[in-house]
């Protein structure tokens, strides 16, 4: 009885030791790699922040609208952005290297997939960022126009435009990644189609009178001497 118990315990300890001997060294190696990657990332980020400290990059970011797209307050620093990109890129490479240290089928497959997916993921990120920029630009333009033209609910108009463009960007990105592209495309077509249909029906049944009143109001306002004199004597 005792012998059997001892045998079981010894077996468990042996298996544990074996597993520890199998996984501990790669785990330690992974931790060392991660730590190394982290220190390298910190160092490289510091160097890049000093290299890109000039105002030219900030000016370019402001001109292109990337600055306000990432940081709505518009106070984004280019050097900080570059530093963060480099920092996270090095950490990602470090993570993949650390994962590879285990040298198992699963981890190898994960690393392989990640490496294969990386260029596509970068492309998709670029597409989404471009969509964000376009959405913000057109949304703002629509907002300013709608406010100045006294269109009802200007913020909703702008938000609608932003959402539509972002949705289109996600559809393009999913198609590029070949990730559920049919689902996204179908959803996009459904949304746009439903929007067009709803708009048409609303215009036909309900909003026609409202639109007529609005346009008549605009015309009469344009025809009023007081308003006209304001706009023509500036």
């Amino acid at each position, binding site marked *: 009885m005792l012998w059997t118990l001892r045998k079981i315990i010894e077996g468990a300890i042996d298996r544990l030791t074996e597993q520890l001997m199998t996984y501990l060294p790669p785990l330690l190696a992974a931790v060392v790699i991660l730590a190394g990657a982290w220190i390298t990332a910190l160092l490289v980020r510091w160097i890049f922040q000093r290299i890109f400290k000039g105002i030219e990059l900030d000016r370019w970011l402001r001109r292109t*609208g990337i600055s306000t797209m990432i940081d709505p307050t518009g106070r984004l620093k280019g050097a900080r952005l570059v530093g963060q990109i480099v920092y996270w890129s090095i950490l990602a490479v470090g993570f993949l290297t650390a994962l590879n240290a285990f040298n198992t089928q699963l981890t190898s497959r994960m690393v392989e997939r990640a490496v294969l997916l990386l260029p596509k993921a970068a492309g998709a990120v670029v597409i989404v960022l471009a969509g964000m920029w376009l959405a913000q630009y057109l949304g703002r333009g629509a907002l*300013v126009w*709608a*406010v100045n033209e*006294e269109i009802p609910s200007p913020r909703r108009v702008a938000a609608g435009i932003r959402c539509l463009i972002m949705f289109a960007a996600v559809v393009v990105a999913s198609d590029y990644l070949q990730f559920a592209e049919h689902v996204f495309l179908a959803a996009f077509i459904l949304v746009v189609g439903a929007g067009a249909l709803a708009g048409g029906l609303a215009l036909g049944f309900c909003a026609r009178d409202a639109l007529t009143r609005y346009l008549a109001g605009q015309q009469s306002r344009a025809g009023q001497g007081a308003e006209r004199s*304001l*706009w*023509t*004597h*500036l």
Partner: protein
Amino acid sequence: MSRADIVVGIAGFQDAAAISRAVCVVDAGLAKYFPQYTAVIVNPAAGTHLLAVSHPPSGSAIRVIFQAAGRLRARACAVVDAGLGSLTPEWVDLLVRPVLHAGFDFVAPHYHRHKFDGAITNSIVYPLTRALYGYRVRPPTGGDFGISNHLLARCLERNDWESGAARYGSGVWITTIAVSEGFRICQSCLGAGWHAAIGSGAGLAAVLKHLAGTVFSLMEEYEPVWRRRNGSRDVDLFGRPLDLSIDPIEAGVEGMLRLFRNACTGLREIWALAMQPGVCREVLALASRASPEHFRLSDELWVRIIYDFACAHKNRSLDRGHLLGSLAPLYLARAASFMLETETLYSAGVEERIERLCRVYEELKPYLVANWTGTPIRPAVPSPVAARAPTSGDVSHAVDTA
């Protein structure tokens, strides 16, 4: 014809009847005041009148007139806006004579206008240009002016003809070049200057975009000039200011304030990018503070708004079209406030109010410089020009206080 002493251009894209009338008036003016000189009338809107000049692909009417004047080696050139219904033969004399006989390089128009007329000019372009460059040229936006061959050649050398300045900002564009680059400048009293229309389909935002955008853009180019100048002085005035009866202007103040209040909700994020936080807070607070009758947007707040927008335009805090478009509701709020405040005042009282606003622009220039350069504000040192009383007839250059 290979040479001419005087070239008069008819600018402004109007209908054939307006242009025909303008040509007749100018012709009468040339015949009456300058019969001994060779003169040419250029009408770029319909090719040219009396002279064959090819149109540039997308150039402005002014450019065509200048090119014609340059080609004809004209000693003086004048441009009149066909859209002005108040054009008379005397205008030709008033715009050409200072150039031809007094050696001035630029003759800016001086109109007699209703107290509410020219609100963009009176609240933004004139005080800002005056505070920046030190010359009291009002309005600096006039489409009628006289110009010497030296300044004309300088303008033709420039490569920014295709910019927004070409359409609405041509007046302020040329005025700024003249006052910044040391050309001799004066004004002529042209009497009433009422416009037939501001332009086909031009909205307020578009007009503001071109006018304010032109001033803001030129601020970048002439930064070394305006940062050295303090205070302002009058320029020589030709002709007599006339006390004419002018059609009254009524404005829908309630509509203007309604648009402003709606904009306070809609555009607050955009304004937050354009203005300093304190200024933005004050603007947003205005929306809920007072009833329409007691609505006031103070001079100081208005000047800070404009200076903040100028800095945002330079820093490209956001797209320039969006930035200037978002200025329109603020401008309307200021115009409404000004109209409410000066409702009961006569022209002299309104002039005093405009003068007060101009002084605030000049006093707050250190605020502009500080925001423009990103340096903290230092206490302003009173300059000799600012301390001096305005002297009519003094046209020497504004003092540079480096």
